[in-house]
């Protein structure tokens, strides 16, 4: 059973002189090849994003009307788009947008959600009731519908898109964290901390938040994929990132679909990029869930 491997966790650092984080990673990679594959893709993506200026063969904004719709070839590996811009370079730069939106919105939503979830579990009573009702309200909107509504108010643009994705995801995280935190709340050590006269903030931040790390990390990775997908959908609808910024969903908008027959590379590569990166985050998130979710562990 998968859980059984976890018993080795205390043994490993003792017999090995390699750093602990590396040991853990290596063990993770051996135990969960799918998760490791996901992590590898994410690392490649992150590298591409940070080194975009170096590795991208062309300026992603450079239009060249003499070279519209060039098929993939030696010069333009992924071909060019309707403005003669290099598709490969735009995909590489697009990974910046995807990672930026994915990371910021999942970070903000998971963090705010965790704080809300823990806080509401800790204080209980009326606070909990009111937060829960508020969360219920937000949760009863489909993700994309709420995101659309937020964009409608704030307008498009990258910062607004991050906000539009963060807001609907907060209650989803808060819900999960709260249920973990509720069981923590009833454990003796929290009572002990209160008896010792520790402040609420200290108990929440020092004692409870660290103990909800597992669901937090799972949410963080799982939301990345969702956020990237959501950003792509919003941009595809023309409500996300604006031209001429390089973004995958935007690359699928309009021309890519209209020219799909003559220039299929315009529709295929960005779609593959979206799918692959979301896939990677989901693989990693899934493996993390298996590894970290106490419910699946053998006690």
């Amino acid at each position: 059973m998968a859980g059984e491997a976890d018993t080795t966790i205390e043994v490993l650092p003792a017999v090995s002189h390699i750093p602990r984080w590396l040991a853990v990673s290596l063990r993770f990679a051996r135990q969960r090849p799918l998760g490791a594959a996901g992590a590898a893709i994410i690392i490649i993506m992150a590298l591409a994003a940070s080194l975009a200026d170096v590795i991208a063969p062309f300026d992603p904004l450079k239009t060249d009307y003499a070279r519209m719709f060039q098929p993939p070839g030696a010069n333009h590996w992924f071909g060019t788009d309707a403005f003669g811009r290099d598709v490969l370079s735009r995909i590489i730069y697009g990974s910046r947008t995807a990672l930026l939106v994915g990371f910021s919105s999942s970070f903000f939503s998971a963090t705010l959600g965790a704080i809300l979830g823990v806080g509401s579990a800790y204080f209980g009573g009326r606070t909990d009731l009111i937060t829960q009702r508020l969360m219920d309200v937000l949760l009863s909107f489909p993700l994309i519908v709420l995101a659309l509504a937020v964009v409608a108010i704030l307008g498009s643009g990258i910062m607004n898109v991050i906000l539009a994705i963060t807001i609907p995801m907060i209650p989803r995280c808060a819900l999960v964290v709260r249920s973990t935190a509720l069981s923590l709340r009833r454990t003796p050590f929290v009572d002990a901390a209160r008896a010792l006269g520790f402040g609420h903030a200290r108990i929440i931040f020092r004692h409870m938040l660290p103990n909800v790390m597992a669901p937090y990390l799972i949410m963080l990775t799982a939301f990345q994929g969702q956020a990237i997908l959501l950003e792509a959908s919003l941009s595809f609808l023309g409500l996300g990132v604006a031209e001429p910024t390089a973004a995958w969903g935007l690359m699928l908008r309009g021309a890519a679909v209209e020219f799909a027959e003559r220039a299929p590379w315009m529709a295929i590569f960005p779609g593959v990029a979206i799918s692959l990166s979301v896939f990677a985050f989901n693989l990693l998130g899934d493996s993390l869930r298996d590894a970290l979710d106490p419910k699946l562990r053998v006690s």
Partner: protein
Amino acid sequence: MRVTERPGWHAAITASTIFSLALLLFSPPGGAAEKENPRSGGELVFAVGETPPSYDGHRETTFAMLHPIAPHYSTLLRFDPQGYPKIIGDVAESWSASKDGLTYTFKIRKGVKFHDGSELTSKDVKATYDKIILPPQGVASARKAYYDMVDRIETPDIYTVVFHLKYPSASLLANLASPWNFIYKAEILEKDPRWYEKNIMGSGPFTFVEYVPGSHWVGKKNPNYFMKGRPYLDGYKAIFIRDTAPRVAAIRSGQALIEFRGFNPAAKEDIVKALGDKVVVQESPWICNLTVTINNEKKPFDDVRVRRALTLAIDRWEASKALSQISLMKYVGGLFRPGAGSQYATPEAELTKLAGFGKNIEAARKEARRLLKEAGVPEGFSFTLKNRNVREPYEVTGVFVIDQWRQIGLNVTHMPQEGGPYFNDFRQGNYETGIDFNCDFMDEPDYQLLKFLSSDKSPLNYARYKDSVLDDLYEKQGRATNAKERLKLLRQFEKRVLDEQAYQFHILWWQRIIPHWAKVKGWKITPSHYLNQDLREIWLAE
């Protein structure tokens, strides 16, 4: 030529007799018409890219209302479907103008019937135009302003309508040929002036069958249509397809035979490639354009040098070559549509003298940089370009314009927005520069210049400037009865707007491209997607 229709008339004659009779009497009116013999029957399925709001032509401003609904109505005059911009009568049989140009008398055809069987008379025409020109409280009329010259309408008898004008107007007849001005029934309007927002009762070639909101609209041949032998079709079905890709796919798969608004060149190529000689492509310049509008109140755009630099930097000839391959944008033109059928367009030789329309882009960019420097605008100056979040042709053009401005050292952020905030920001002056659009149903300076009047005179002018010289010129040209004199005034107007002041300026005029199944016959493209939509001449080949 009048045939009285009585119940049972059809039954009395065999079908074949009717058919041969129809052929005999109504073989096409020669000239521009098709050589083949029109065939009666069949249902035309066409695609429409939007859904109609209300059904009232007098208040709506979208083609999505006209395309499914125009076949139910007649108008007083119309543009000749085979020979734009010639004006012909629809329910008007003939008309004459007084020498001073202040009185127009129209004779109404006899025997025009509404779909409920009642006769259309001068009373209905008067009620219709009264509603358009002097709408009662609580009734909206979108184009009231264009009929300012009309003083009053009289009906000396049931087949005669007289328009009395306050001043002579060059555009009156064209305005009466407006495709929006459906003739409504006086009796209904009297009871409820808003009845037509949700109901159909016209005298057009097709009667109303059903509308499933958001899905499709169905019409059926009007057997009592005043023009005998028309329409050829048994009926039509308009299907609403909002997204471009499925709309193109609809034509390719034959689920729709035609779409009347227009496709971009890419879609056209795909359709032609897939269907070969089963499709025919009709193309025309389009009375639509995109404009760079500039908030003249914001610094540094209140400086004419900056505005001139912005227009100088845009290489319209390059844009024409490049954008025409991927978008609706194509023709280089000034304030008036270039191309066939346009009497007002500035010839190329004269046009190239205007700022930003010249062919030497290097020199223009150099001049632009010089002007910016002189105005104290630093290299890399940043500002925003508001745009509509519609891919075609808005965003495509936005990308182009930003790239052009980048080449004179300006750093522009693109801000596409939904329609609501877009218009809101334009109206409130909450923008620096933006991409604005204009589309009209005819080449008429009264329409095309409206956008450039002082902002307190024209709600279409978002550039927030006041210029009494332009307002004067506008009034003069509208009342000019001499064509040559009018043209001269128009040139002055154009030079002032585009060159001397560069308040706001056109980028390109659009191309209208209609790829349709070859079996759709009898429809000829016009420079406007608002015209020629009553479908009465259309027939389907086998």
